[in-house]
């Protein structure tokens, strides 16, 4: 148990704190500030409009784009520290199975994803607070509660994506190509889930988790398959 915890601790320590802070702030405070600046210039047009339009768009942009993008950036950065010293190649001399390493890396990403989610909930509350006087807010606390639940739902729905993009990042030698493949799957996933209601692309599981008629329960099975396949394929690919 001690060794497992020590390995997890060192998995975090491999990464530069400044890089993690930069990514987490870049994916929480920065979008919030951009939204606030944008809304400031449209403050007159927003007067009397329903607040749910703004908050719904905010949650929607996270589910469709920002969370998957955050996972792509984080997974690529986490694998980059292994590539830099050619350490994946070196580890083949003593590592016969890779499941442990992949799971530890997934835990690191998920814990940072959770951190960003809590930051988002806080910033989202600030957004609601800053607009509630000018817009038609209704029951603000109920709105905050519902949106917070949506953020948590998206976070849980994207766990399979953590494993999936980690697998891609580990197996694709050039990180630029890893980013490109991730972005392509992300962009193509949005119309597919919107048109077909088929939760097969893990990059659009966030959208699926909020979509009426689908929800979190609809991605349990495909999510489990994605996690399992990602682990098996990554293990096989790294062993080769």
């Amino acid at each position, binding site marked *: 148990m001690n060794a497992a915890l020590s390995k997890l601790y060192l998995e975090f*320590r491999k990464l530069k704190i400044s890089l993690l802070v930069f990514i987490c702030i870049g994916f929480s405070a920065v979008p919030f500030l951009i939204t606030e600046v944008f809304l400031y210039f449209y403050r007159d047009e927003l007067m009397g409009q329903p607040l749910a339009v703004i908050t719904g768009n905010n949650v929607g942009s996270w589910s469709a784009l920002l969370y998957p993008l955050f996972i792509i950036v984080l997974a690529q950065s986490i694998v980059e*520290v292994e590539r*830099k*010293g050619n*350490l994946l*190649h070196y580890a083949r*001399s003593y590592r016969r199975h890779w499941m442990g390493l992949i799971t530890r890396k997934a835990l690191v990403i998920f814990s940072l994803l959770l951190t960003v989610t809590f930051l988002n909930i806080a910033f989202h509350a600030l957004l609601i607070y800053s607009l509630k006087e000018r817009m038609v807010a209704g029951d603000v606390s109920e709105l905050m509660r519902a949106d917070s639940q949506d953020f948590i739902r998206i976070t849980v729905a994207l766990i399979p994506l953590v494993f999936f993009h980690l697998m891609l990042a580990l197996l694709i030698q050039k990180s630029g190509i890893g980013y490109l493949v991730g972005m392509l799957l992300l962009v193509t996933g949005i119309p597919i889930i919107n048109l077909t209601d088929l939760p097969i692309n893990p990059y659009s599981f966030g959208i699926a988790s909020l979509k009426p008629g689908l929800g979190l329960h609809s991605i349990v099975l495909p999510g489990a398959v994605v996690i399992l396949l990602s682990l098996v394929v990554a293990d096989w690919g790294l062993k080769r």
Partner: protein
Amino acid sequence: MKINNLSFGYGNTLIFEDVTIELAAGKIYGLIGPNGVGKTTLLSILAGIQRKYGGSVEGIDKPGLLLQNTSFYDNLTGAENLRLVCYEKGIDPRRVEEALRWVAIPPDLSVQKFSTYSQGYRQRLGIARSLLTDSPLVLLDEPFTAVDVDTIGALKKAIVQYVSETNRTIMLSSHQLREIEDILDLTLLVKDHTLIPLQTANLSTHLEGRQRIYVTFPPDFEALDRLDACPYIQDFRAISQIVMIQMRQEGTVSLLVDWLESHRIEWRRIDRNMPLEFLYATHSA
């Protein structure tokens, strides 16, 4: 530890064919040969990195390994990097201190981030990592590359001490023949898709009471025919820039040196034992 009928190739390029060799415990083996002949490939096969080969490898699993172009996690300290390897290999992490002692990395440096290490200390840490193994074999690929003379001396001392105290076997590859010749028990030349053991022990330095010495001249040495005039030389044979000299009965090394100096013939060093470089050149010619 045994390699049986090992065969390997990259595509249509054959690297090894039917190589069989047994490695004894407590010995240091040197792997030499020109670039691209397969030294690193052989180490990769023994390390389990390269797994598609013909034949079999017995008694070797998860050996200690130093590979060229592999580094450490910049953000972890030297000691943390080694501890991580211990956790992953299932080795007691308390052995990290011992490994750091082998390669003379001071405790205050071991708690600093790897990114602050000099090239010499990076190489020392690499060797310390390779010594953290339960396997009877440690593989070192070019352990003395890009390090200064003092570091080479410290690393050679560590290697010899490690072998004598643990009875483990080390196989190292190197192009720095002068640096490794005094620590090797057996040299293996990689040539013609196989390993050729080079025996130095049975080469006498005396022949019929006359001394045989090896003089290394500068790389651009062109005055070989002038050695014919030396009264102390019975016979000589040059390979590369090293000349094997058979002295006359009355000849001594000091007389030869005096003669070379008086004739303004520049020389680099004189060996009584056959230099590995000479032996290598003999077999490569």
